[in-house]
């Protein structure tokens, strides 16, 4: 029996277990990163593995001079990636905002992988994130045995990134309690982290930067203070630009989830998914797809992620209680639940939408009737 470390406790970024469920970006796309680095002759900021131009190419995809094809990691407006990379190059912190399902985490991971070659310096923001997760903690055995010293200090990912000149990521920054968020202010403006217990400080090395992601439309978040907000350049990741793109995303994710939940296979009819996506998009944008009628928007976010869950639960309903085919009736309840978050105002919005838009629409009468039935 060999004494080995349990693979799930591998120190992040050191070795990569072959059977990891999901490899880190820098491992999964190591080849592309290597090719880019080899052919990258543009100036690189200090401690960047690639030039800003190459980082943008890595995310947006393209063909290199020698013909190597780089797969696009982010499909969306070019502007978004360009602004994000430029922000990091001007050593400003980057805040990625967006509703669920807009690839915030995905973009931040790939940015960190391309810029610093390491996407594992990560702070998971939760309502219980302590200050130690951003500054430093103590190894109490050491502390008691030898008193305060650098050895007794347990650095946070942020502190390590400062020392190494790397990119650190903070996920779900708005979930972090406000007082803990504020520890970032000095780090971002002074680029230094004082350790008063030792009378020392950690100064950030050139190349240090921070990418935070946050959801700006969820309820119950801790709004960023304006002092902290000022230290970030903000990029809002948009929802899918077209109905087709969104239908595609929803259909793909629904298939994956269906498989992993081992739902009985139900032909999910792209038409029904398209209807759900259309309803969500129209209500979210406050305008009908043909651009002719304006609408009130309900208070919910109606993100792509919610559309996915509506379709998934519709499929489950159809499989277990229906006739095995996804019908409007299976979706109506889910849609109602997603749209009507505020029972008074949203209900009016929804009924207005039903009566003034859906009732008239050709080929939607079954859908309209199903929605009307559950809304009455």
């Amino acid at each position, binding site marked *: 029996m060999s004494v080995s470390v349990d693979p799930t406790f591998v120190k992040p970024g050191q070795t990569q277990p072959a059977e990891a469920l999901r490899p880190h970006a820098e491992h999964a796309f190591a080849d592309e990163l290597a090719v880019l680095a080899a052919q990258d002759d543009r100036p690189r900021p200090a401690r960047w593995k690639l030039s*800003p*131009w190459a980082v*943008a190419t890595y995310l947006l995809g393209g063909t290199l001079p020698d013909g190597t094809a780089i797969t696009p990691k982010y499909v969306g407006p070019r*502007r978004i990636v*360009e*602004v994000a*990379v*430029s*922000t990091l*190059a*001007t050593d*400003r912190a980057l*805040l990625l*905002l967006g509703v669920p399902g807009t690839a915030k985490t995905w973009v931040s991971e790939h940015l960190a992988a391309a810029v610093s070659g390491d996407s594992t310096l990560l702070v998971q923001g939760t309502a219980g994130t302590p200050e130690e997760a951003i500054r430093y903690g103590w190894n109490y055995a050491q502390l008691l045995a030898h008193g305060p010293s650098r050895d007794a200090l347990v650095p946070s990912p942020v502190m390590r990134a400062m020392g190494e000149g790397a990119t650190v990521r903070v996920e779900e920054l708005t979930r972090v309690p406000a007082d803990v968020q504020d520890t970032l202010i000095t780090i971002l403006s002074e680029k230094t982290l004082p350790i008063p217990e030792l009378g020392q400080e950690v100064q950030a090395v050139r190349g240090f930067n921070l990418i935070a992601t946050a959801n700006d439309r969820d309820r119950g978040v801790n709004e960023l203070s*304006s002092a902290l*907000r*000022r230290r970030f*350049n*903000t*990029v*809002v990741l948009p929802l899918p630009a077209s109905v087709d793109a969104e239908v595609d995303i929803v259909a793909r994710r629904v298939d994956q989830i269906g498989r992993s939940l081992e739902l009985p296979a139900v032909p999910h009819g792209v038409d029904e998914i398209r209807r759900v996506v259309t309803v969500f998009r129209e209500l979210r944008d*406050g305008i009908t797809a043909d651009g002719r*009628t*304006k*609408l*009130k928007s309900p208070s919910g976010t109606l993100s792509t992620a919610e559309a996915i869950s509506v379709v998934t639960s519709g499929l489950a309903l159809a499989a277990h209680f229906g006739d095995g085919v996804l019908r409007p009736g299976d979706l109506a309840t889910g849609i109602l639940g997603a749209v009507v978050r505020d029972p*008074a*105002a949203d*209900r*009016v919005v929804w*009924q*207005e939408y039903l*009566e*003034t838009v859906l009732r*008239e629409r050709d080929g939607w009468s079954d859908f309209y009737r199903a929605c009307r039935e559950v809304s*009455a």
Partner: protein
Amino acid sequence: MTGIQESGRSAEDARWPLLLGVRHHGPGSARAVRAALEAARPRTVLIEGPPEADPLIPLAAGRDMRPPVALLAHAVDEPGRSAFWPMAEFSPEWVALRWALEQGVPARFIDLPATHTLAWEGRAEAGDGPAAEEGSDAPGGTLRVDPLGALAEAAGYDDAERWWEDVVEHRGAGGRDPLAPFAAVEEAMTAVRETHEGAEGDRDLVREAHMRLQVRAAQREFGGDAVAVVCGAWHVPALRRKAAVADDRALLKGLAKVRAELTWVPWTHRRLARDGGYGAGIDSPGWYAHLFGAPDRPVERWLTKVAGLLRAEDRLVSPAHVIEAVRLAGTLAALRGRPLPGLSETTDAVRAVLGDGSDVPLALVRDRLVVGDVLGEVPSGAPAVPLQRDLDRAQRRLRLKPEAAEREVELDLRKDTDAGRSGLLHRLRLLGVEWGEPVASRGSTGTFRETWRLRWEPELSVRVAEAGVWGTTVRAAATARAEADAVCARDLAGITALAERCLAAALPDALSVVMRVLADRAALDTDVGRLARALPALVRSLRYGDVRGTDTGALAEVATGLAERIFVGLPPACTGLDADAADEMRGHVDAVHGAVGLLAETAAPRGSTDPPPSATDGPLARHGDLRARWRAVLRTLSGRDRVAGVVRGRAVRLLLDDGEVGQEEAARLMGLALSPGTPPGDAAAWIEGFVGGGSGGGLLLVHDERLLALVDGWLTGVSAEAFTDVLPLLRRTFSAYEPGVRRTLGELVRRGPGERADAVGPGAGAPGFAAGLDQERADAVLPVVRLLLGLGGTSDDTPDDPSAGTSDDNSAGTSDDNSAGTSAGTSDDNSAGTSDGNSDDSLAGVGR
């Protein structure tokens, strides 16, 4: 990068005539033109533009002439046919003009005369005017290939505008040779035109022939090395080409002509922008003006301006923000391989750094700075605007003289001339020219009659001149003005009023815009009260439009949409109201009821007499069930306990009047509302809603003693302390009745309600009448009644028929209590019924 840096020439060996190919409204071109003129010092400057404007050139030197302005050419006999040559401060043409005036060098316009252009205009389809052509450097209307696009593509750019900006407009003043860029542009354009041989439109060839002749004439006059030409880059190779004079003259032979006049008119940045009216083809006039005006560091200055604007709007923007935005814009430009941050880089930087990633502040920046609110000025010496001319013609045609003395005219809109007069006066009012003032008609109040008080004040001429910015004809100007007003209007009522005015002024084009704005506003408005206020006016317009013979399809569609929104929003809005709000809401319910009736009525005959186009088919077809849906809403209202009493009572009454609810059912609902459990105040409010407010409720009580008995029974049951509370409300309700009705009611009550137990149904029970109905004698009245009501011969839907009115189908019996009414109200089912057994307890000993 394809910069235009090196070109071995210098000012000495410039090729004459000096051909300065520019992009119209390009600030970089403007700077380059000025530098080139300074360096070469020609003795005359020729500019692409209508030669008839030559006498107007000196006006450009005046101090009260402030760009943006436009040269406006219009056909004398037809002011609606016009063309514009807009010039901003940063237009190369304007710069050349000013340089010539400052240096005392003669300047001339050399394009094809407007007299031909306008005649041409008449033949070409609308929208392909010289204004459009002037604007885009690629004369897209006549030429299929885009020359700049071809060049940009060759340089590896996907956007031609951006390429031009990078290589020409954003070039700093660093180049040593001011003529070099023009030589390079000429070379490039020559190459493009060689590749696209034959792609020039007919009009281009003619224009270029004319310009060549003019250049030649100028060379003869001023000498071979003294002539500079400022024209679109596209034309440069053609002007350089040696062509036989005879050929050029041949091309110009036999061109159509119209009598044209030119003048300067003030212009705005918004109109230079692509999305406004006669666009000049640039979407960022404000940014260009900034580039042209900023002495140095354009990006820093621009972002400081943006910060100032955002601060004025109470956004927190510190100098540190501006610094970071400048850095980000610079890095972005480098990443994108551009020599200098352009508008897109600064916009991205503003969004990410100053705007917290949001597009909302950006919209503001775009509106105020990128486009900008700059309004030009023209000296008063400029010739009269065509609007005045159009007005003169209209006045002559309609025999309506402007007179200083006040007089009243009465117009019969059924006559063509009078309708024209009314339209003109309404249009002028829209334009702020208050020549006529509508006054209440004496005598007839029909919708086809209007009375106006006319008085022409001298300052109205000034108003007409001011209104000239909106268009060249009264109609076009009023349309443009109404559209602009609609977009800026603050509230729904304002827009409906505007819609009424547009109808009166017979401006169908403006009406469609107004309707779109109205539909948008209505969709976003959450206050049912405002919607309910807007609907009656809209329906009124609809009927009025019918009188005028205007197409009101769009109007009907919007009105229907508005009604639908009210139907959805009304029930939740009627709950939890205090007394005043409830009274107001009752007014809204009444107004909507009337409007829905009118709306359904207006739509019905139209649908049957002339089949409407398919676009309006939907809404019109839906009018039929509009009433049914409104009744469903009323039912919901009448059955919901949380709805204010006065509204509930009113809803029941309206349903009763429509014959939708029978007397039995009404009595049941009244019994419920007045049952002992209901707070007395609420019950009194219900009574007020049901029979109050001058709606003939008194007669209803006189004729249906059962209802009276219910009120009477309830009132005697009210406790002493509650009685004083409800007394004012009841007094208000009953004092509104006619004295005769009040007396009859008093007598009935004194006699005691139980006396005439068999009195059920209308017509029975009033003193002095027989107990039953004499069918024969009643029938004799019917033809006259029909005639009075204009019902014609058919009588299948006569609610006035006494026998039909009472024989409601009340068969479907549910024996539940309160909830029966509620569920009936929410479903569309019309035959929601009542049961006698259910209301027995409250009716016991009264009705039977």
